[in-house]
């Protein structure tokens, strides 16, 4: 049986096509303003890569902040649950998940494969991937590079761990004081790690800790976060897809629960056609 998980995040959209215990296809691409057209586009790409047709998919679960805009999904599940399931599948001993997304940051406490507690920040850009985006833009560097550059520093600059807008100004101040870019970046990563640690710390960080989301790809952030936590974290081979992966696992579970008759009905009702928010006729 074949299952699909589609995770429309604030910044990046992820699709996983899974057949039994094997991942057949992964799609990762930026999210635009038009979620419905995007959902249609990414599922087609994923089907193509996996070499299956739409009718062969038994169940589709959508997650992420754009999950209600996936017209062909059979169910919507919150990203907290999906992330937890995806991570538990990869790391069965996980106790804490730290997810650093484009516009939010989550901490999930897992006990025996169930969510015990979670904490989330989506009201303030400090402590989210957006912070990294803004600073790389301010310094004129690529987002992918800033983590590595920060590792070259021996003396991180003092940056307060609060507002992203204030950090931008602090960068300019430190630059005019003649502080090197490595030291500024190290200071920024340290501040971001401090901010994430103080938030996720509220649910008590316990081993094994898994870091996911775009933030997991930033080696500088991981280093400073590990320093604060006091032990090393685990990183999935592709940190971006845990939500979509979890969605496909939940899809599999839902099929088992639903029974064949109901499933046949769901599949008959489901259609893949391009839908948009706007009337594009004119």
């Amino acid at each position: 049986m074949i299952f699909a998980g589609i995770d429309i995040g604030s910044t990046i959209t992820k699709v996983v096509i899974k057949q039994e215990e094997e991942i057949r296809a992964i799609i990762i691409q930026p999210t635009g303003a038009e979620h419905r057209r995007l959902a249609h586009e990414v599922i087609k790409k994923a089907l193509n890569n996996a070499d299956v047709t739409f009718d062969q998919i038994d169940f589709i679960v959508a997650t992420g902040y754009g999950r209600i805009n996936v017209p062909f999904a059979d169910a919507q599940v919150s990203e907290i649950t999906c992330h937890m399931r995806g991570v538990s599948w990869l790391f069965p001993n996980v106790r804490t998940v730290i997810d650093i997304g484009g516009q939010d940051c989550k901490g999930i406490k897992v006990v025996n494969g169930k969510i015990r507690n979670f904490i989330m920040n989506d009201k303030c850009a400090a402590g989210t991937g957006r912070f990294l985006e803004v600073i790389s833009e301010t310094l004129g560097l690529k987002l992918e590079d800033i983590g590595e550059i920060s590792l070259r520093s021996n003396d991180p600059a003092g940056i307060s761990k609060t507002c992203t807008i204030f950090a931008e100004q602090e960068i300019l101040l430190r630059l005019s004081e003649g502080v090197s870019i490595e030291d500024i970046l190290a200071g920024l990563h340290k501040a971001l790690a401090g901010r994430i640690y103080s938030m996720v710390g509220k649910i008590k960080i316990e081993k094994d800790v898994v870091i996911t989301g775009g933030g997991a790809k930033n080696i500088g952030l991981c280093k400073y976060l590990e320093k604060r936590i006091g032990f090393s974290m685990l990183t999935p081979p592709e940190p971006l897809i845990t939500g979509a992966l979890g969605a496909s696992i939940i899809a599999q579970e839902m099929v088992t629960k639903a029974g064949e008759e109901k499933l046949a009905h769901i599949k008959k009702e489901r259609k893949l056609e391009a839908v948009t928010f706007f009337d594009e006729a004119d």
Partner: protein
Amino acid sequence: MFYKAGLDIGSVMAKAVIMDNDKVLSYSIMPNRGSFYNAANNVLKEALEKAGLTYDKLNIIGTTGLGASFITYPHIKNTEVACQSRGMNYLLPSVRIVIEVGDQSTRVIKVTEKGRVADCVINDRCAAGSGRILLIISKVLRVNINDLGNFSITSTNPVRFSTSCSVFAETEAISRIAEGIKKEDIIAGLHQSMAIKIYSMIQKVKIEEKCAITGGGAKDLGLVKMLQKIIGKDLLVPDEPFISGAIGAALMAAEKEVVFT
């Protein structure tokens, strides 16, 4: 003749005034363009030229603002809050509550009759409610920052913003544009969210009869109108809201009676 200069080197704009006793002779305002040092020199030079004076004629220089520590010539530095309250007391003596909306900072200052600070609330942790979002939105909407107010006051249905974070407000504004919502409603929505944030700061100091708004935000008619609506009081605005801090800096420096030659 006692010539004094006041400089307010803010995070975005540098402001200078030249005063003779209690009279403002000239002033100059210019953007920092990344260098506090250059801006501080140029803005003072321009103000002196306008007043027809030279640097040697100045008896005292008072400074304030984030960039004041980069100034190399002799000066007397005071805090932004103290200078704002002194400056506003000079411009509008009856005012007891001063709201300053700067690029990064929003401050609500309770001013005594003598222009001293009685109480103040500063947004030191979060840029929500500060003027930065106005700069950001003017870029996103491709509207001149000076026209934001005119758009805002024509709105009948301001958009509700879910966060007051200046960074996320930009993203939200972009989403609203994609949904086809009108410019004026987006701008008015932002003004509303700023005004609510500022009002929550005002509530921390007890509101008084006479209130005024200064700083770059005071130039935005839309923000001023929205604040008046939310506070339920009229706000006084100085003729040139940018220079109230610089005036305060000049006055406070002279009051300290440390004269250099």
